[in-house]
């Protein structure tokens, strides 16, 4: 209980410090707004995102359809609002997966060192020497596009990068006395890695995770745009952009609103990530 209270206090302390960065706060508010919209979903969306209105095809923004309609007369406003779900779910699951994989690999290689470290990190270097988007396209092109595939692929692509950060943090913490003490106490390697080391590398991991979350949105939206992610008729921001391309000269609203949605979210995440980085570096 006491630990819990301390943690809550610690969280508010971080928020208080972050509030010194106006951009970080703007970012946080926009992210929370999108999360709220994603949770409320159908409650805030006036129509079903997949409902056809054949009499209202390609209508521009109006009171009835604030963001206009697409080629089937589907309401773009509802499609953009509901599209926040897929991008947030995909990007956060992918980030969680890469964080899990990456920090495990980093903890193990950093703590054990020696041959394991050498071999695994060399392999990570090779994985990182492919352009991320190309690797993701190749995998999804081969195993077929799917939202689950997007999560796995982004998780895999970013895991080596997180592993590198985790490993270098572990190498530093490993030198400290309490690790030595734990070894003398005869604690198991697993205990030392996950109970002693992990809590002490949250800082750099948190910074990396926030940056990776931004990249994950970037990458998942790009894959959606290439048609390799979420498939129609599910609304997904990247996919909406792909659908809009054909009609861009005479139905520009189909592109403008999803583009603004993606832009607001990625910029917000990067503002927040930048504030978190400054906080960790002691600049706030």
């Amino acid at each position: 209980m006491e630990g819990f209270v301390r943690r809550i206090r610690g969280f508010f302390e971080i928020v208080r410090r972050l509030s010194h960065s106006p951009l970080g706060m703007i970012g946080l508010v926009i992210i929370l707004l999108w999360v709220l919209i994603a949770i409320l979903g159908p409650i805030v969306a006036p129509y079903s995102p997949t409902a056809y209105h054949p009499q209202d095809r390609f209508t521009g923004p109006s009171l009835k359809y604030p963001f206009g309609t697409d080629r089937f007369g589907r309401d773009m406003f509802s499609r953009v609002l509901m599209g926040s779900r897929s991008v947030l779910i995909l990007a956060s699951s992918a980030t969680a997966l890469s964080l899990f994989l990456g920090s495990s690999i980093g903890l193990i290689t950093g703590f054990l060192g020696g041959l394991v470290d050498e071999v695994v990190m060399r392999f990570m270097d090779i994985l990182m020497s492919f352009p991320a988007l190309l690797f993701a396209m190749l995998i999804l092109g081969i195993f077929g596009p799917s939202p689950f595939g997007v999560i796995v692929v982004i998780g895999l692509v970013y895991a080596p990068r997180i592993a590198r950060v985790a490993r270098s943090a572990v190498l530093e913490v490993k030198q400290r006395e309490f690790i030595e003490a734990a070894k003398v106490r005869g604690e198991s390697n697993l205990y030392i890695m996950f109970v002693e080391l992990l809590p002490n590398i949250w800082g750099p991991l948190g910074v990396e995770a926030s940056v990776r979350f931004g990249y994950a949105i970037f990458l998942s939206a790009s894959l959606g745009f290439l048609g390799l992610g979420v498939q129609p008729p599910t609304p997904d921001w990247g996919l909406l952009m792909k659908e809009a391309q054909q009609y861009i000269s005479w139905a520009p609203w189909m592109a403008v609103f999803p583009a603004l949605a993606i832009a607001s979210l990625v910029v917000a995440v990067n503002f927040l990530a930048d504030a978190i980085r400054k906080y960790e570096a002691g600049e706030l």
Partner: protein
Amino acid sequence: MTKFIGKRLINMVITLFIASIIIFTLTEVMPGDVAQMILGQYATPESLEAVRAQLGLDKPAVVRYGDWIWGVLQGDLGTSMSMKGVSISDLLLRRGRNSLFLAAFATIFLVPLSLVVGVIAGLREGSWLDHFISTSSLVALSLPSFISGTFLMLIFAIWLKIVPAMSSIAPGANLFKVFPKLILPIITVSLVLLGYVARMVRASVIDASHSDYARTAVLKGLPYHKVVWHILRNALMPTVTVIAMNLGWLIGGLVIVETLFAYPGLGRLVYVAIQRQDIPLIQASVLLTSAVYLLLNLASDIIYTFLDPRVRY
């Protein structure tokens, strides 16, 4: 120095070799029967057999991998499956030339601009101009290319009508003659790096101007432009590597930008190959892009050792 470059080259060859195995294995597990795809649904078992034999698909995977790599080493990449009879080597050369043109102009555009902008922000740390530059470069680096590209297209091509919206060009066209079509793709593909490099330059200028030698220069009474010269010489060194390292990023960016503007480059070719499940074309184009990416990384390491006399391997 030669030893270092040699070691890195060997490393690169090993990485490329492993990459080729990974690419081959991945395309190997690709669902679907190639012979069936070529002949269509109503092919007889005999004709399917014949096509498999002709493509060498009846041989074991290891032998086919060997054949493929042997061909690659001799510059023979086979023929495309979806574009019947087109030599992949020719195709990659043509498309590669177009992409190189785009990437070269993007670099010419973004490097000086990001340096100037970053140096101005760094030297005026904390001013409103610095805040403006820092914030807008953060925005520029966060936006996916298909978003910034769409905005640029909407504003400059569809609304103001000063540049063409689409960049489709005839094969073999003189790229200088159709240059207006390339303006939007060039700017779009540069934006992310522009933001990124400008921020790096700003950070290293600030670092350098807080250093002891900069303070000494000021206290010694050197005129302002000489102090700035001291700072810049030291600040721009890490920037060169940042630029070289991130040029590899352009490759991923090119896929999106070329698809968005329908520009016939290497990136769009990779995309089309994957969409059409054209296995020989996927193998060749992905291997080529990985090779280019690795070469750029190698180049950035070498440049760094040349620039920084402290780094000696």
